[in-house]
């Protein structure tokens, strides 16, 4: 396979791998990035149509596959627009330049040269006619009509149905396996599953087998995970240190506070699903994984195969919001399919499998300290946090990371989750404050042991770091006697960051305080290199906390599809509100009654103030997560005069803060 880094185009073969002119007059575009419900394929089609000068309706986006797509890594980190979009724009610009040089009338008459100069000029934003417009999502009509849209809906000839048999808690090994008639039981060490002709039979058999089998309990998950994290530090890493003793000495008051966030589930509405089929000694997999090449790499390790003998196709799934069970279920399906001769096996996890075995967004603890000068400025800042790594994705570790790999007769040691490097970072994502603090220390206490397997959840460590930093900023502002927005502006130089905060000033000032209500604000630039976002939250506190309104001011550079950006921002605000108000995973949670999320009558109104400019386009999917949670916590504090520093902001915690 061709491996291609974004922006690198050296020959015609790679160019035609991305952009192909079909005989029917359409243009096929191959991208390594995949549709996750974020609308990326519509945005890519807009970019291609724009740069080629071809009508949007003629552009066809090919589903990604290791068989023909460029390897663009994982679709994650809000990088598809900035990286995948950039590579696609470049490819299309090269193609347009080739056409212009050739003297031919259309792309369809073009004979491609072997050498591509690679320096074709791209269109200027002022020339854009398609990029920057709210083209409707191309996939949605079929989804509203209930047409087959997901890997879950695929039917292959001769397909069998599989289910896995796992308890709803961690285990060290399978002790005894029960007996069951009428289905094929597949076992490899402590990995167990069943195969049946009919889906309902596979489900019933797996449930019966689970009830009849016993497992040796794994190590218990600590009751107080945050204290446990602090006691199990493997590495103390300094994310950033700036020593300014002179500034530090100006501090006349020291403030300290500690915050926590729990384990949070991705909690996709559709439990993860995959189809696997062996063709003699070759394997074909259909998956909603965010990283088909990484998944393939880990499959080769577990199955002891060569990359050439595995093809992984991406097919859409339910929204994942990061690394959910998609990769795990793909390995499960491949293992079950080994017992199915050459028949395809469709495996969907049950709801309890997803809750019990998805890789969670990790628990984190934070301690902050600030020195405040007599003129109300922060002169010194300490932020340290304790966390596991925030990525456990396939393809990045020397050992395979999928759940079943650790359960096989010849098991693979469970590799710890790791952190991507700064500036994006993992646990340390957004840990370095955006503000101008002269004396600064940020410490990442990396915990290697994982009581629960955790991996990337939308925004990684940024959610917790921004919640802690922006809650603490409000505590400092109150101590300094300055309003929250002016206090932040006092410490913020970046004009685009200032602009999103200033965009909320009018709404902040117009607020009239009814009884039991409060408002709060928070700001971050995602990863410190991505989208700018400031959120204003309004809350009402009765017997519980209710978020009534969120206003998000966002700058993503030039929005490729403004309504698509708004949709992502609205969704991000609502999901963050759900995390902040309700969500905390505890072992034993197996259904929505154990793990409630915000419902229709509970979600806040959301307004999006989108900056329009011509800066390079950036992703929008994750920038709201931290600011929304912090703004809600700040609004709660504004309403009640007490602060809750532990997520989620439950009625019990609010009552405890009032009574403290």
């Amino acid at each position: 396979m061709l491996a291609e880094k974004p922006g690198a185009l050296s020959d015609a073969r790679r160019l035609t791998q991305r952009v192909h002119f079909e005989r029917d007059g359409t243009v096929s575009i191959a991208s390594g990035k995949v549709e996750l419900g974020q609308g990326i394929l519509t945005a890519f089609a807009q970019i291609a149509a724009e740069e080629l000068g071809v009508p949007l309706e003629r552009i066809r986006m090919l589903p990604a596959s290791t068989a023909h797509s460029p390897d663009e890594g994982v679709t994650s980190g809000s990088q598809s627009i900035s990286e995948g979009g950039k590579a696609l724009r470049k490819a299309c610009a090269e193609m347009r330049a080739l056409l212009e040089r050739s003297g031919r009338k259309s792309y369809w008459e073009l004979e491609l040269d072997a050498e591509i100069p690679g320096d074709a000029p791209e269109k200027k934003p002022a020339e854009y006619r398609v990029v920057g417009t709210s083209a409707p999502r191309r996939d949605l009509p079929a989804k509203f009509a209930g047409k087959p849209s997901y890997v879950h809906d695929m039917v292959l000839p001769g397909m069998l149905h599989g289910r896995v048999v796992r308890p709803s808690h961690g285990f060290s090994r399978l002790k005894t396996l029960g007996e069951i008639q009428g289905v094929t039981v597949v076992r490899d060490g402590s990995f167990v599953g069943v195969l049946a002709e009919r889906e309902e039979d596979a489900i019933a058999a797996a449930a019966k087998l689970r009830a009849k089998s016993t497992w040796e309990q794994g190590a218990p998950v600590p009751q107080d995970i945050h204290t446990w994290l602090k006691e199990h530090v493997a590495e103390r890493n300094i994310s950033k240190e700036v020593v300014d003793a002179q500034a530090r000495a100006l501090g006349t008051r020291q403030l300290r506070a500690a915050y926590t966030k729990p384990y949070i589930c991705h909690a996709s509405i559709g439990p993860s699903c995959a189809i696997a089929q062996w063709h003699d000694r070759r394997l074909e997999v259909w998956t909603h994984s965010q990283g088909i090449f990484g998944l393939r790499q880990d499959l080769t390790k577990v199955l002891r195969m060569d990359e050439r003998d595995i093809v992984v196709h991406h097919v859409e799934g339910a929204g994942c919001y990061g690394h959910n069970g998609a990769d795990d279920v793909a390995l499960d399906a491949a293992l079950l399919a080994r017992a199915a001769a050459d028949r395809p096996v469709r495996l969907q996890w049950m709801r309890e499998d997803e809750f019990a075995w998805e890789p969670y967004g990790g628990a984190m603890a934070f301690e902050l300290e600030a020195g405040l000068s007599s003129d109300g400025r922060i002169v010194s800042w300490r932020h340290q946090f304790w966390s596991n790594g925030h990525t456990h994705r396939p393809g990045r570790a020397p050992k395979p990371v999928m759940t079943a790999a650790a359960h096989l007769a010849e098991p693979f040691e469970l590799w710890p989750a790791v952190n991507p490097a700064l500036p994006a970072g993992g646990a340390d994502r957004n840990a370095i404050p955006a503000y101008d603090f002269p004396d600064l220390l940020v410490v990442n206490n990396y915990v290697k042991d994982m009581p629960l397997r955790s991996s990337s959840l939308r925004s990684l460590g940024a959610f917790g770091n921004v919640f802690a930093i922006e809650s603490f900023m409000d505590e400092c502002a109150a101590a300094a006697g300055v309003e929250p927005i002016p206090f932040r502006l006092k410490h913020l130089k970046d004009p685009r960051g200032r602009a999103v905060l200033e965009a909320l000033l009018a709404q902040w000032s117009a607020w009239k305080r009814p009884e039991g209500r409060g408002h709060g604000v928070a700001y971050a630039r995602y990863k410190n290199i991505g989208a700018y976002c400031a959120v204003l939250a309004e809350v009402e506190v009765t017997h519980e906390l209710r978020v009534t309104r969120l206003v998000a001011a966002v700058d993503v550079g030039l929005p490729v599809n403004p309504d698509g950006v708004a949709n992502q921002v609205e969704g991000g605000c609502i999901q963050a509100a759900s995390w902040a108000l309700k969500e905390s995973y505890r072992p034993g949670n197996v259904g929505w009654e154990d793990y409630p999320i915000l419902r229709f009558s509970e979600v806040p109104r959301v307004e999006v103030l989108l900056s329009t400019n011509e800066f390079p386009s950036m992703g929008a999917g994750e920038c709201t997560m931290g600011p929304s949670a912090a703004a809600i916590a700040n609004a709660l504090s504004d309403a009640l005069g007490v602060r809750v520093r532990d997520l989620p902001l439950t009625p019990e915690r609010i009552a405890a803060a009032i009574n403290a």
Partner: protein
Amino acid sequence: MTEIEVNGARHRVECAPDTPLLYVLRNELRLPGTRFGCGSGQCGACFVLIDGKAMASCDLPVWSVKDRSITTIEGLNGEHPVQKALERHQAAQCGYCMSGIVMSAVALLSHKAKPSEDEIRTALDKNLCRCGSHNRVVKAILDAR
């Protein structure tokens, strides 16, 4: 053998009578628009109309619906005003929960032509959406009235 009426047509299906309707729809009748979400009626992804009422099909044995009229998302042909309004409002991200949401909305509008925003939200409280498309959905249904 059970005989059921789905989207106006009668079907004879070969399955155990306690088979949940969801699997009969998806695998026997090849109507995959009704989706599996939880298997216990807690999320709404598998809602269908049973005699006009939105109900979970994931824990509904097929024997219990043999004399009832069943409508699935496919029965609306993508042409229902709710579906058209959802398109206009771009009211989804991943869309996995949407079939169930459409069925809840259709059931609501068939009983009450002009529900208020609060009534719409309450009616949809049985449907979970994880992407956060709630407000667009509510606006779409208000627009479809």
